[in-house]
């Protein structure tokens, strides 16, 4: 059995927290640069140009791309043949967040109690989704999530009869409702199927897909394209100031569901769609 010490995990998490907040992955950066080239809305184009300038300054000066450096959300795949030594795995991840947000000069945006609202001071606890998988590897994906866009996310408990039309209409409804609040151009994560909470988790996971990836199922890939096209016909545009780029991408993740239902979750993300993965 393979062993891994939690000190290694903490160090990797710390590094990912900082990297994810200072530079977008190449696929996201390419998406934004392409959008700026084709945008025909005057104010929208101005917004996209300033986003490119912003990415460059962030990289050159090691300043976070956005001041909302997010809650630290993780998807962790633990190989069932792996043995983890040291502290608890969850504590090791939280320690990495604590160190990364401190040493990377990232914002501490977490309050301990939703009503009493005292800041925890170190951006912990993280939100961690675990999966047990075959093998002996440990794969950690971080997706720091800002709440300007998170607040505009929605769950729709659609019925089977709502079909593709219901899906298109619901995602479009969520985007129109978000308008300028979620910092368009958006990256739209959709979870389809499962149950109430799994749909939401899938929607978040969809945000971690590469911008240029397509769903392996042809009918879902087609739906991704159709919804993106519909969103970009709204004219909301970059910053909500008019333009053809309201969303950069739509990604759908699916799961089997019940005969009576078709849960749909829409997780909004702004253009600062940050994610990093490491396999240890």
């Amino acid at each position, binding site marked *: 059995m393979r062993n891994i010490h939690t000190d290694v995990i903490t160090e990797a998490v710390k590094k990912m927290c900082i990297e994810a907040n200072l530079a977008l992955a190449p696929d996201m950066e390419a998406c934004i640069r392409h959008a700026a080239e084709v945008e025909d809305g005057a104010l929208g184009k101005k917004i996209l140009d*300033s986003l490119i300038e912003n990415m460059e*300054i962030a990289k050159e000066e090691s300043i976070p791309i956005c001041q909302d450096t997010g809650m630290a959300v993780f998807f962790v795949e633990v190989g069932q043949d792996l043995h983890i030594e040291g502290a608890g795995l969850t504590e090791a991840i939280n320690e990495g967040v604590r160190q990364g947000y401190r040493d990377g*000069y990232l914002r501490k945006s977490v309050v301990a109690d939703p009503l009493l*609202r005292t800041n925890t001071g170190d951006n912990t606890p993280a939100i961690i989704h675990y999966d047990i998988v075959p093998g002996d590897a440990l794969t950690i994906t971080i997706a720091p999530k800002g709440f300007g866009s998170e607040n505009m996310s929605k769950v729709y408990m659609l019925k089977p009869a709502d079909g593709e039309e219901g899906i298109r209409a619901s995602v479009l409804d969520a985007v129109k409702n978000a308008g300028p609040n979620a910092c368009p151009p958006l990256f739209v994560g959709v979870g389809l199927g499962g149950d109430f909470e799994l749909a939401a988790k899938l929607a978040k996971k969809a945000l971690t897909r590469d911008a240029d990836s397509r769903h392996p199922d042809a009918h879902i890939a087609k739906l991704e394209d159709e919804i993106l096209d519909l969103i970009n016909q709204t004219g909301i545009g970059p*910053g*909500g*100031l008019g333009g053809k780029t309201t969303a950069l991408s739509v990604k759908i993740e699916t799961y089997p569901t019940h005969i009576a239902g078709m849960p749909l979750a829409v997780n909004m993300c702004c253009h600062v769609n940050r994610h990093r993965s490491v396999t240890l």
Partner: protein
Amino acid sequence: MNKKIQIPFDKEELKDLRAGDYVYLSGTVYSARDAAHKRMYEAVLAADSEEAKRAALPFDIRNQAIYYLGPTPAPEGHVIGSAGPTTASRMDKYTPMLLDMGLTGMIGKGKRSPEVREAVVRNGCVYFAATGGAGALLSKCIVSSEVIAYDDLGTEAIRKMEVRDFPAVVVIDSAGNNLYETAVKDYLASRK
């Protein structure tokens, strides 16, 4: 149209600004977001005279601007960290009262409530939007920053900041025109 605007504001000058105007703001702005707004609002409500209400606020808000901002910490050698706008609508509950007390400008992003828009018109104010998610770029326009109140709130503390040529667009002007409503319609009409 690009205009240079000085803060504290001259309300006469603001009358000429129209939704869609691109402006460069220079002068003093105060950062405040959710927690600071709640605290200011409750302090004013608890005060029993006009004078006490004004004294309950940590700074004289007359003719001033609030920037809806919670920055990242400033690394050594920097004035401030990443410093872009947060969503303004979360402050809508508290805003009409502040505008009626003399607050004149707000810098944020996203939609406002009908009540805020009415208070903007009633008091001859302006709501500006800065580019959401451009915190690194916008931080370059902030030349000084000092926490002046509510230090315990961390990133949500109130900061007095000097800005120079801070880029923003007029979203709601003093006549109540709303760029988010007109810009999308205008764009769609231009494509037909």
